[in-house]
């Protein structure tokens, strides 16, 4: 019987990386941390009522001025959160989700573009994405703690890893869905590769890319509770506390707050996506 101590090798690699790449991880940690702090500051500083008005206004703009359902939902939903006394924690979670999404897009969209334009890249990227998506989310937490100890940063990093695949996949898909004759036309008129990317491929892939953004945000939110296990704070921490202390009401309240946040972000990105799709479909 052969024995393959894969986990042992993995430990060795992670330990080696922790020892030797500490400067890099420190840099990442500082950057991510200040990003999160920055967003938290923006969300915390104004009075909650003002923030609710801003959120509702954003929703109104995204859905178009004729529809006010989402704006109304936003006001009611966030007032509920305020009433439950979860405003601060919700804003912490929102900041974490936005930063994680931002980083995931920053990496995911270019990777998606690259693999959409080159089949060889796609062949390498796809199994990595499969790995990222199917590996149980908890497993990311361990190396994240090794690299960044506990707190918001490892939570955000684990969230990025977990939430990035749909963004990459849907960007690639969007690029691949651009009809062959449109690409051929742009070649025939003498496009440079960059012109082709920015004037043809990206605009036509935009609805698909926005669908990827939506999926990334949703996955990031669903990771929030898990990330709370390593001290990411926010609503997730409340849920975890509710579970650990069997406090039914507390768990339910924070759960509802997460649902409100999720629906808000989903509807807004969805509205933006269909806005750009409408423009193309005519």
């Amino acid at each position, binding site marked *: 019987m052969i024995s393959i101590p894969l986990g042992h090798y993995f430990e060795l690699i992670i330990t080696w990386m922790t020892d030797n790449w500490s400067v890099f991880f420190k840099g990442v940690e500082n950057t991510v941390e200040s990003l999160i702090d920055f967003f938290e500051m923006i969300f915390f500083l104004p009075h909650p009522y003002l923030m609710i008005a801003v959120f509702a206004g954003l929703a109104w703009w995204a859905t178009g001025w004729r529809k006010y359902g989402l704006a109304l939902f936003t006001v009611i939903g966030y007032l509920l959160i305020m009433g439950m006394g979860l405003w601060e924690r919700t804003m912490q979670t929102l900041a974490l989700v936005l930063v994680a999404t931002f980083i995931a897009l920053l990496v995911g969209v270019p990777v998606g573009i690259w693999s959409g334009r080159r089949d060889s890249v796609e062949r390498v990227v796809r199994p990595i994405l499969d790995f990222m998506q199917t590996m149980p989310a908890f497993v990311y937490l361990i190396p994240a703690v090794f690299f960044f100890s506990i707190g918001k940063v490892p939570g955000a990093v684990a969230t990025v890893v977990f939430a990035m695949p749909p963004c990459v996949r849907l960007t690639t898909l969007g690029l691949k869905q651009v009809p062959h004759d449109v690409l051929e036309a*742009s070649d025939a008129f003498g496009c440079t590769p960059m012109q082709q990317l920015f*004037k043809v491929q990206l605009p036509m892939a935009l609805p698909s890319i926005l669908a990827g953004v939506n999926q990334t945000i949703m996955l990031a939110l669903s990771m929030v509770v898990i990330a709370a296990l390593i001290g990411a704070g926010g609503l997730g921490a409340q849920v975890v506390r509710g579970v650990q202390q069997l406090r039914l009401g507390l768990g339910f309240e924070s759960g509802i707050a997460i649902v409100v946040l999720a629906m808000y972000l989903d509807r807004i990105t969805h509205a933006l996506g269909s806005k750009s799709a409408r423009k193309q*479909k005519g």
Partner: protein
Amino acid sequence: MTDNKPVIEVRALYKIFGARTSEAKKMADAGSARPEILKKTGCVPAVVDASFSVHKRETFVIMGLSGSGKSTLLRLLNRLIEPTYGEVYVDGGDISGLNRDALREVRRKKFSMVFQHFGLLPHRNVLENVGFGLEIQGMGEEARREKSMQAVQVVGLDGYENSAVNELSGGMQQRVGLARALATDPEILLMDEAFSALDPLIRNQMQDELIELQARLHKTVVFITHDLDEALKLGDRIAIMKDGRIDQIGTPEGILTEPATDYVRAFVENVDRSKVLTAASVMKKTPTVSTHKDGPHQAVRNMEHENHSSIFVVDQDRKFLGLVTIDDAVKESKKGGRSLDSIIRGEIPTVEMNTVLRDVVPLASGSNLPIPVLKEDGTLAGIVTRAALLSALSAEGDAA
């Protein structure tokens, strides 16, 4: 219609898909068929030994069924597909050696392309689509707008410039495609089955408009089609392709009247010849009398000699005047008249050399007389008889 300077010259051009191209080329040169080459070398010879030139202002049609290699051949001209062997000269310069930047420049300045499925950008409106080529060249927004508007007007889309392209019908979308191609004012238009995706009625209309446009703009057009009627209608010259090879290159009439291979012959059998063949191709010589030297007596003798009951009359420059009947000539000759002038019947229908037979038929059915064919200067070139007409229009009968 054409002048002699070739704008595009293609020499021994090959496109062979696969790895063992030199082997495949040898087999193709030896005359092996595609399935055999594929089996032995794993290569597909899409275009084999194509050589032709396209002249300035000419509409050159490449016709073939699907799989004949015609679309590949078209794409070899601007290197959307890289040739395997052979050269393509555009305005005298070999484009097969150009690097990416130089090739891009050639594509921007000399070529434009129109696609079967339009290839428009759905996120842009009509005007922005039309201006695409100009935008790629880096033209400023103002100038681009102006030029795009001109192109929009040329194809008759004014009023639609701000419409979304997906709101337009197929025919209108292809007008956008055509306007986009014309906006950059290219020398050469490559049209890949440009009208094949349209309804028959719209297709016909677009063909007519292309002919009209071409009469005004004088582009050099390479047009791909699988539709022989379209080829015959649009082409100044037609190349017929089969299995990657060009079977015949010729004028529409040349291809109809002298098909070079069995394949071409089978192809042209079902064509509506009446739309293509002209009076000149079926006319015969005819005896005439001339007013300056022949009188009624001579006319009667000529008619008796030919066993005809009438004869055409020309003047001393062979300008067509009309005809005299044997009855009139006999009467006049008995009266002692010496001139034909008083008995010429002038009001007979005539046709020109390039009148297509479809337009000759109604004239022929309206009278028992042969139809006189006139040259541009009004001189008599010959006549079209009913028998010649019928034999030319029947598929088997090679035209007179």
